[in-house]
């Protein structure tokens, strides 16, 4: 009986809150926000017609792709397998949100930051498999480009996340402890505090750069370069497969920025919960705005330039921050 209750608790957190439903809604609202922000920068209107100020436009797009449009693929593309891979990526991301201390239902263990990194890896692999699953050269090229970048940005993301968690929750390496930690610096000596702050700053810089690459935002949007490889890994997708891919992308963005913003700015919560949803969302949109502004003020790098930049800056910074985190 207890096992069954535990199972349904995990199913609820995975599918509803703070899982699939919450992340999908947050992700699609974030997409609208990003599009509106960039439209303002480029002197355009942006989404306008569906809902107040066009806020429901991303929802309408995904609904239409999922339930109305047909899926057109090449003769030798395993369409149903691709649909399953994308769904698995979305659900694995949603399952990893069970580690976020947003409700009393969250789960926690020592070293669970590693479990979070492991579960979110499914989404990255799904994105490269979407491209490689097609027989057309453009999606395959997009998939290969993403898989190549993945070898650099994924270690950078993982190492910098571990460094931040190590500083905020040194004894347990638990994501929930790190996110719920109200006091950023609990140093006994001033020198230790300086080192902790330096570690956090280095890890945050590395994480944000690697995140731009993971989210395929400029200057690292080479896997979906529209003018060069016709949309890359998304080029041959349509109907439900395209709808799910968009959803996967948005869920990934919302989850990562949510975790990052709350690790970066551990403001004490207003409400008695370990992680207050209001302050968390405020931090989320602040970080999203900064990342979007940074991304859209740059042009696209070439694949070799992007790889070199990723190795030189985020990967190196993350390794330094990890070394610092385990030294102090």
């Amino acid at each position, binding site marked *: 009986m207890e096992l069954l209750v535990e199972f349904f608790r995990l199913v609820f957190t995975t599918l509803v809150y703070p899982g699939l439903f919450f992340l999908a809604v947050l992700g699609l609202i974030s997409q609208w926000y990003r599009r509106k922000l960039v439209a303002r920068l480029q002197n355009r209107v942006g989404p306008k017609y569906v809902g107040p100020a066009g806020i429901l436009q991303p929802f309408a797009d995904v609904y239409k792709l999922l339930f109305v449009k047909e899926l057109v*693929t090449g003769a030798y593309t395993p*369409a149903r397998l691709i649909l399953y891979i994308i769904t698995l990526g979305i659900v*694995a991301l949603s399952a990893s949100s069970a580690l976020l201390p947003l409700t009393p239902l969250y*789960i926690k*263990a*020592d070293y669970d930051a590693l479990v979070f990194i492991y579960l979110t890896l499914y989404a990255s692999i799904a994105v490269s498999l979407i491209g490689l699953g097609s027989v057309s050269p453009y999606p395959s090229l997009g998939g290969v480009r993403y898989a190549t970048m993945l070898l650099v940005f994924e270690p950078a993301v993982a190492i910098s996340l571990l460094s931040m968690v190590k500083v905020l929750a040194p004894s347990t390496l638990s994501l929930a402890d790190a996110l719920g930690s109200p006091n950023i610096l609990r140093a006994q000596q001033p020198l230790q505090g300086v080192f902790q702050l330096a570690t956090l700053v280095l890890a945050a810089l590395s994480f944000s750069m690697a995140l731009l690459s993971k989210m395929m935002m400029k200057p690292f949007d080479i896997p979906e370069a529209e003018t060069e490889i016709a949309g890359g890994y998304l080029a041959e997708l349509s109907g439900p497969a395209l709808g799910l891919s968009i959803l996967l992308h948005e869920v990934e963005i919302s989850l990562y920025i949510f975790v990052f913003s709350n690790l970066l700015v551990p403001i004490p919560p207003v409400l008695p919960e370990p992680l207050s949803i209001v302050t968390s969302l405020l931090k989320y949109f602040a970080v999203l705005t900064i990342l979007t502004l940074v991304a859209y003020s740059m042009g696209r790098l070439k694949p070799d330039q992007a790889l070199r930049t990723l190795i030189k800056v985020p990967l190196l910074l993350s390794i330094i921050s990890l070394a610092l985190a385990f030294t102090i």
Partner: protein
Amino acid sequence: MDALSMATVLTTISILLALVLWLPISLKARIRKTEIYLSGEPQSMFSVSITEVSWAVRRVFERIYKVLVSHVQTGVFNDWFALSLPYLLMLILLLVIVVAIRGGGV
């Protein structure tokens, strides 16, 4: 719950829930497959026979075949004998060993 069992439980739940969500989407999806573009020719014009599947095997054995042809099919008996001599010597050696072990009688 420790980290390893947490990872196992969450992976199992992910795979199962993905299956549950995927089934209705996959069954309901209208899938249209497009043929490969072959300069306007119909795809039915092209077929792959079962012998074509052995292409890679033939490719591997091609080198051995070429060596044999260049050494044996020269029209000179000595070429054939030179190539076969080590093989024949090996057979004789094997025969001697067998006889030495088992003895000469039947």
